[in-house]
């Protein structure tokens, strides 16, 4: 007991000293300033000296990941994708025209899926860890907070996993969105439904009450009404919802042909499961985020026939030939190369968050090559000019002042869980038609 007590006292005192140490200017100030000054002097010196000798430059990429909290799962995919890219790019590095070889390093912290520390952590990344380029955290909310910091330092930030349109309509200049924005997540699903069943008229939207999903369904609702559908139910649920019974009853009462919505993995998979268990009679079910995840297969029969928009799938058919046909530049590994490398490293098939993490690195890599420099302004200009096809799809950023950085070219694909010949659940790309790996099943097998 006594020892325990002592330990507490000691640890609190240490903490106190640490706090006071931070607050006491005399020792802290020079100690903190000196190394920074050195770094500041060293870097340009190194660059200049390196140029003729064809030396090496290490570029630091900073980002926070949600290692704890509700966003942990998608955030992990994103991090893994990025780490894979890092490993690959560092084999040879990027050789600039002056012979400098650029290599990359990453710095990362846990943002706990919460906004409070994001700004502080990004400042630390830029100031202490001298991050030259940034990758966004996962989710639109956290990215909003991080964007303020990126913008105030003028550091380029590639966002992945931050689809909300609103972020890019606030007058940003150095933030670039890799994902298809939220407003275009479900529009394809509506086209698909119209193509599959000309008689389908009624759609119910049941979605998570959060920034991203609300943005998605509001755009989708407008699009559906424009296409002549009746929106018979439009209602949000709380992020922590585990019991969807009230919604199922409302859906049953509204008798829609299709249900669309969802939000993130947890709620979406639960909704799909309960719709199945309750035998709710719908013909078409499209949910955000959850269906493309591999764990969705754990729902077994409840997963069958469920459609989900995906930023990217391993079955996607983005190829050099397609790029040539469309007059686009092709860059980076092929879909198969990426998928294989990812599986070799992590023992699982990559999902779109993983693809996004990797693609964020690839985009940056290409921009540095194009700019032939690691200078932020030059890289920014290269990103503005970019119109690229990669394994992840087409990437082109909006360059207008109002919505600078908003993704313009990237398109969603739609997956559906189906049985293969052995009766195993597999994910197939069913839309758009030109990218199909299988015919869609319609109506939902219930």
């Amino acid at each position, binding site marked *: 007991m006594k020892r325990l007590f002592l330990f507490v006292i000691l640890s609190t005192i240490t903490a106190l000293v640490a706090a006071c140490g931070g607050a006491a200017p005399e020792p802290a100030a020079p100690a903190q300033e000196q190394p920074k000054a050195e770094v500041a002097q060293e870097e340009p010196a190194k660059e200049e000296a390196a140029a003729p000798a064809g030396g090496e430059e290490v570029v630091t990429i900073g980002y926070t990941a949600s290692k*704890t*909290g*509700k966003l*942990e*799962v998608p955030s*992990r995919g994103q991090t893994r994708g990025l780490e894979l890219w890092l490993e690959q790019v560092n084999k040879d590095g990027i050789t600039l025209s002056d012979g400098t070889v650029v290599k990359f390093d990453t710095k990362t912290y846990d943002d706990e899926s919460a906004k409070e520390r994001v700004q502080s952590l990004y400042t630390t990344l830029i100031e202490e860890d001298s991050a030259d380029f940034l990758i966004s955290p996962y989710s639109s909310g956290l990215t909003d907070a991080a964007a303020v910091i990126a913008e105030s330092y003028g550091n380029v930030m590639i966002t992945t996993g931050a689809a909300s349109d609103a972020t890019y309509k606030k007058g940003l200049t150095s933030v670039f969105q890799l994902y298809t924005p939220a407003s275009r997540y479900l529009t394809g699903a509506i086209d698909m439904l119209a193509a599959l069943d000309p008689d389908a008229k009624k759609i119910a939207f049941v979605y998570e*009450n959060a920034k991203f999903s609300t943005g998605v369904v509001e755009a989708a609702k407008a699009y559906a009404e424009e296409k002549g559908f009746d929106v018979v139910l439009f*209602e*949000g*649920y*709380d992020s*922590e919802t*585990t*019991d969807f*019974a*009230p*919604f199922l*009853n*409302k859906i*049953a*009462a509204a008798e829609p042909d299709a249900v669309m919505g969802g939000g993130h*993995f*947890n709620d979406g*998979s*639960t909704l799909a*499961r309960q719709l199945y*268990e*309750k*035998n709710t009679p719908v013909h078409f079910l499209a949910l955000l985020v959850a269906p493309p995840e591999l*764990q969705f297969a*754990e*729902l*077994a029969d409840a997963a069958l026939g469920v459609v989900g928009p995906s930023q990217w799938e391993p079955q996607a058919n983005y190829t050099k030939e397609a790029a040539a046909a469309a007059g686009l530049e092709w860059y980076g590994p092929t879909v198969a190369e990426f998928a294989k490398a990812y599986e070799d490293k992590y023992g699982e098939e990559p999902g779109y968050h993983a693809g996004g993490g990797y693609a964020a690195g690839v985009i940056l890599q290409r921009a540095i090559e194009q700019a032939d420099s690691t200078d932020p302004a030059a890289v920014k200009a290269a990103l503005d000019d970019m119109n690229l096809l990669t394994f992840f799809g087409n990437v082109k950023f909006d360059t207008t002042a109002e919505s600078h950085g908003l993704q313009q070219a990237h398109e969603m694909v739609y997956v559906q869980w189906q049985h293969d010949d052995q009766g195993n659940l597999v994910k197939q790309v069913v839309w758009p038609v030109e990218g199909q790996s299988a015919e869609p099943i319609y109506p939902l097998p219930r």
Partner: protein
Amino acid sequence: MDQFIASLADGLLLGFVYGLAAMGLTLIFGVMDVINLAHGPIIALGMFAVFFLGPPGLGLHPYVALLVVAVLGLIFGAIIYFISVHRILDGPHLSSLLSTFSVNMMIIGVGTAIFTTTPKNMDFSIGGLAFWALNIPFTRLVGAFIAVLVAAALYVFLYRTQQGKAIRAVANNRAASELMGIPSTMTLALSFGIGTMLAAVSGAIIATFFSFSILSGGVYELKSFVIVVLGGLGNPTGALLGGLILGALEGIVPVFLPVSWVPVIEFVLFVLILMYRPNGLFGGGRS
């Protein structure tokens, strides 16, 4: 009308399980005046326990696994009691609120490290009942039935057995029980264990029909607060009724309003009852 009936039935069936969880919270409060802020994570641990004992893990039938969960819950609760509650029992309320909250943080912290926050599914189905407007999976029916059974067992235990009466005696007057030879510390640990057990079992039941993660307990913890206040703090039988009321509310309100208004109504009701009927809707319990 169909929607109303279906919705009400769904709500009520869940209400029993909510009530069971809340019983654990209110029992602990009734006996030792402690609001157990580790309640939610304990519910979540119950979910994980049945998951790992059940088909996805050791392969026990989920309802057999429930029994094991109950025993584990009891032991775990007693351990929590000795570590975090015993020393500060006579301290101010703040101490017990914070010490149980620290247990909450530890469970969530370790739980996230081990289980991640990826949701888990039991994939357990035993068919369902469909007639008229109703469509009820048997898991829900059995869950509600078990909840009632456990509640009844708790009642019999507290009012018909020597050990149970000793718990009530300690709740009523700890010093006097000690004088009569009742080992009050052990009795308190037992009560905390039973409270924990009820939470864990309710979590395990919930896991047979909903997906869950280590963070899932939070929702049920807040529901338990509402129920406990509805039924009267410290009144286990009131908690079951409170659970039913909450379940009914969750069933009825969505028929007329967007579902997102349900929690608004719940919490406004919660505050109003605290303000005007702090002993619960049925007035019983401790004054």
